[in-house]
Structures are given as C-alpha cells and as structure tokens.
C-alpha cells in the first residue's frame, strides 16, 4: 500500500474509533469528489461514514478554518485531520483563546508534501511531522533543514525591485481583486465575528473594488495577520483572480521574524509580539 493509502486506512480507523466511542461529535477530514482538482472537506458524524475519508497528494485545504465556525462548534468536540502546516494555524487559535485544547481532538498526519509538482510551501516545510497531536498517523518523515534565506523567497523577489516597480506591480495585482473575500473566509485566523470591512458606521474601509478600496482592504488584511499568519497559503490558492497574496503574508512574516525573532504557530504557548509587552522591544516606531 502506498504511504498515503496507509495513512488513509489509519485515519479511517482512528476516526471510526473516536466516533463510536463518542469522544467527538464530528471528524473533519478530506474526501474525494470526482471531478474536483483537490480533496474536499468532509464532516463525519457516524463511524459508518469513515470510508469517505482519504489522504492524498491533493489535500491542500487547511481545515482549521472550520474550528471557529458556529455550525461545527455546535456539534461538540471536534476531531480534525491536520498536516503540520495546518497545525500551526491550530496553535494560533489555541494561543489566541479561540478554541480550547480540550474542545479539539487533533489527528496529525505525517506529510511529505502535496501537489505535483510540490507546492512551493511544501518545498520549504519545517513541520512535516506534527507535534502535540492526540493521534498521529503515517510514518515519521525526515525533516530536511530549511535555511533562513529559503523562507521568504516570494517576498524577497518582489522586494528586490525598485519601489516604483513594486508599486506598479501591486497596483496591477490588486486592481484585479473582486472583493469576494475568499481570502478572508478561507483563512483559519480571520475568525472575527465582524470584520473591519463590515463595520460601516462609519465605513472604515471602502467596499468598492477600485484600486484605492482594494489596496485599503489588502493592507488591512495583511496588518491584521502580521505575526499571526502561518503561511498555509490558502488565501492565494483560493483567490479566483490569482493575486499573489502569499507574497504579502511573507513580507509581514519576514518583518516579524527579523524584528522579533518570532515565527507564528510553532507552539500554542508562544509569546506573540502583538500580545506581549517587553521592555526589550526596539522603539523604532510601529512595525
């Protein structure tokens, strides 16, 4: 059996066990829908349904987005399939008290990377093996060393351009935005009950999809994710207009890494820069 076949089998067994023991009210994992170019989320409530679970090269989604959804929380304790990258988002949700550890049952998957060719984020993945999960399936994968200079290559590439070219680049990219908010909705860390964009008395950010409004929206989004974004890349994957949102996130992550030596989501006990006061912080101004 292939590595993914073994993982699929182990996931089904683990899910069936926790559902029949009533340890969880729902298991969120991946399933196959013929015709889809990726494996889609499935929500299992009964042990008989576990045949729908799969793990394959196309499990791109970060299911942690569902942990803060009211419809899921109503079901009770949540079992959730997480790759190492997804677990980073779960760690931030724990750190920010959005979920409690006892409310989730984490089913970690040793993941060697997704997509053919491999997704760029998988090539520099530092969490092939998730830690701190309740159950882990698959064979442990040797973690290749990832050098600091490999982490933010998309941001580096754009930063290398003169400022006028960067401005031109982002104007062109952001002018494509149709304000569908798929980037926000798919983001596990955009859990606000009411987003700044929806606050309309007064309207803080213009909702019109002109360059000015789009720029304001994407700057607001980037700033709210600074020091929090875990680089799962879902926003860029789902953007119907192919805006390279990952590069914006990388830039913010790079600044926080350089200034505070902090990278988000590697532990739920992190002291994140924005929520921690330290007299050691440099006082050059706001980030």
């Amino acid at each position, binding site marked *: 059996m292939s590595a993914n076949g073994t993982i699929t089998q182990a996931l089904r067994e683990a899910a069936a066990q926790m559902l029949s023991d009533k340890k969880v009210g729902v298991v969120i994992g991946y399933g196959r829908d013929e015709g889809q170019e990726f494996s889609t989320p499935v929500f299992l409530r009964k042990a008989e349904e576990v045949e729908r679970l799969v793990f394959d090269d196309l499990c791109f989604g970060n299911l942690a987005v*569902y942990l803060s959804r009211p419809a899921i929380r109503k079901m009770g304790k949540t079992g959730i399939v997480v790759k190492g990258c997804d677990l980073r988002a779960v760690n931030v949700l724990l750190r920010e008290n959005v979920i409690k550890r006892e409310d989730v049952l984490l089913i970690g998957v040793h993941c060697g990377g997704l997509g053919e060719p491999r997704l760029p984020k998988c090539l520099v993945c530092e969490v092939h093996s998730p830690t701190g999960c309740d159950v882990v399936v698959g064979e442990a994968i040797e973690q290749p060393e990832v050098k600091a200079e490999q982490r933010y290559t998309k941001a580096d590439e754009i930063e290398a351009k003169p400022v006028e070219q960067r401005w031109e680049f982002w104007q062109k990219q952001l002018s494509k935005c149709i304000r569908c*908010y798929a980037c926000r*909705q798919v983001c596990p860390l955009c859990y606000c009950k009411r987003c700044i964009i929806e606050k309309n008395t007064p309207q803080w950010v213009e909702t019109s999809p002109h360059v000015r409004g789009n720029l304001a929206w994407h700057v607001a989004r980037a700033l709210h994710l600074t020091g929090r974004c875990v680089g799962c890349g879902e926003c860029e994957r789902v953007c119907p207009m192919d805006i390279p949102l990952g590069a914006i996130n990388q830039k913010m992550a790079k600044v926080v890494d350089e200034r505070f030596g902090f990278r988000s989501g590697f532990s739920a006990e992190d002291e994140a820069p924005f929520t921690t006061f330290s007299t050691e912080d440099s006082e050059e101004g706001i980030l």
Partner: protein
Amino acid sequence: MGEQKLYQASANWLKSAVDALCAAGVEVLAPTQTDSGKVDLARVTSSEQVIGSYANTAFPLKRLFLPMSEVLLKYEKGENGDVDLEPESAEAKELVILGCRPCDVAALGMLDKVFQWDYSDVAYQQKRDRTTVVSLACTEPSPECFCTSVGGSPQGSEQSDVLVFGNADNTALMQVNTAKGEKFIERLADAVTPAPEGTKLPEPAELERKFNPQKVKGWLDDNFESDFWVENSLGCLGCGTCSYLCPTCHCFDIVDEASWNRGQRRRNWDCCSFSQFTLHASGHNPRPNQAARYRQRLMHKFKYFPERFGLLACVGCGRCLKNCAVGQNLIADLADIESR
C-alpha cells in the same frame, strides 16, 4: 428575434472581423490569455491576440453590463447649499463581443428581466444596446458544464446576435438572429457568403443531463426547512466566489463615497453568501447562518426566479463548482435534492 439566416464564413473570418471592426472604430472583446494563464475576454486589436481553443472564459459576460463597481452619479454641495448632481456619462461606442459561449449569452436574458423589470435600468440598458454578441457554439463541453440540465444547449442561440459554429479548418457556419447580427455579417464583407439552401446546423455536442430542475423545484417548494441546508452547507466558507463568477447573479449594493462636500454614488456587486448582506441596522439578521444563506442562493436560482420570471437563474456554466475553494458542487447538490 427575427428570422434566422445562415452564412458560410471563410477561414480568415476572424481576422476579417477584428480588422473590419477595429477599422470602423468598434471596440472588440475576444478571448485572450491572461497573465496568470487563464482565458478571459479582453479588448483586442488583432485576431492574433484571440485564443482559439478554450472551454470557456474565466469570467462570464455579466461584468460588461453590470460592472463590479460603477459610478451612477457624482455630487457636489456648493457654497449656497445647493447640490449639483452629475449623472455618469455612458460609453456609447459600439462594442462587439466575439467568441463567448452560449450559456453566458443566455444569462443575459435573465439579467434583462431584472434590469427591465419594474424600472428600466439606464446604466445597464445603455451597455446592452451598444453591444453585439457573437457567440461560439461549444463542441467539447467541460466536466463542470451542465447547460442541458437547465434548458440550455452547447449550441443555444438565446440572446446571441450571431451564433458561430466553428470548424476544424477555421471556416465557420454563422447563424444570424438579429438586426445587430446582420450588421456584423455586412462588416465581414467577402469573408462570408449566404449558406446554400438546405444547409443544416451541426448536431449539438452531447452533454448528459445531470438533474431535472422541475423535480428540484418540487422539492424546494416543500422544504424551506430541512436538514439538507445545514448538512450541505457545512463546508461553505461564505465567500462570494460562486456569486461573483456566476453569469446570472446580479445583486448589488449602492454606496456613497464622499469627502467633505463632494462624492460619488457607486453600485458594487454584493452577494447573498455574505452575512452582512441581510444584516439589519437593529443587529437582527434574518439569514443568521451559512445554511440560511446557502438555501437562499439555491432557492433564488431554482425557485424564486423561475416563479417570478419563468426562467431558471442558472445557465449551467459550472464556474461556481469549478472555482469553489472547498469544492461545493452545485450539480451534486441538485442531484441530491432530486433524489429526495
């Protein structure tokens, strides 16, 4: 729709069309490659920019008639307190769209119903009036296509001024449906000749029906309250991708963007998947969860719109299921409803 006439077009018809239209000062939109490798309608000045082989364009035609964001008027308050209103001037230049697909063109019939309903929407109608639609019959429907399930056809001619049946050797058969279509044919000059008496249209590409909208509506009529809505919307993230890429979704929001004494009133796309769409000023939200919002989307397309206008608000282009971040599959959902 007038009498349908058939013309044969020679292999260089596309070049002739783009050249003749550009020479006459007509704006031409045709499928081109975008910088991210997709195919989409864009302004062309040469037939060489036009992509020949594609299933459909990334975006439907909607945005050409109901733009994502459109200035409806500008206003300025004078020193004496009077307000000057300036309606946005409309583009009157003739526009020809070449090579859109029959499903997207059929959607214009639905938009027409809405924007010519109890009020004739000037901004919309001006754009419709200036536009000639030359559609291209589909020979190879994509896996996500389901036009035949919603009353359409890979070679449907609804709302098309000219429907083109392209051949492998670049020649084409053209079915002319309207006076605007006649004018297009005239501009092609030598590149077209009337088709011989008895010329038959090609057989339509086969596309299996995936559900029956009448049966779907029958279930919708009785099941406003059902677990189906909760179960099938668990994955839905509540973004606007499906609506914004839909050829028939037409909801909009009107906003004023103003500085101290002047501003503009804009019409922007809006979407029933957003929680704010129905949020009242009181804080009450009649569609309080994603299940209610997902239900609205299906009900509107397959129950309310047909009841009001006698047409389904879906043309089966499949963009919603192709672009959904979580693989929400409208075909599967409707087949599920039919089986209930």
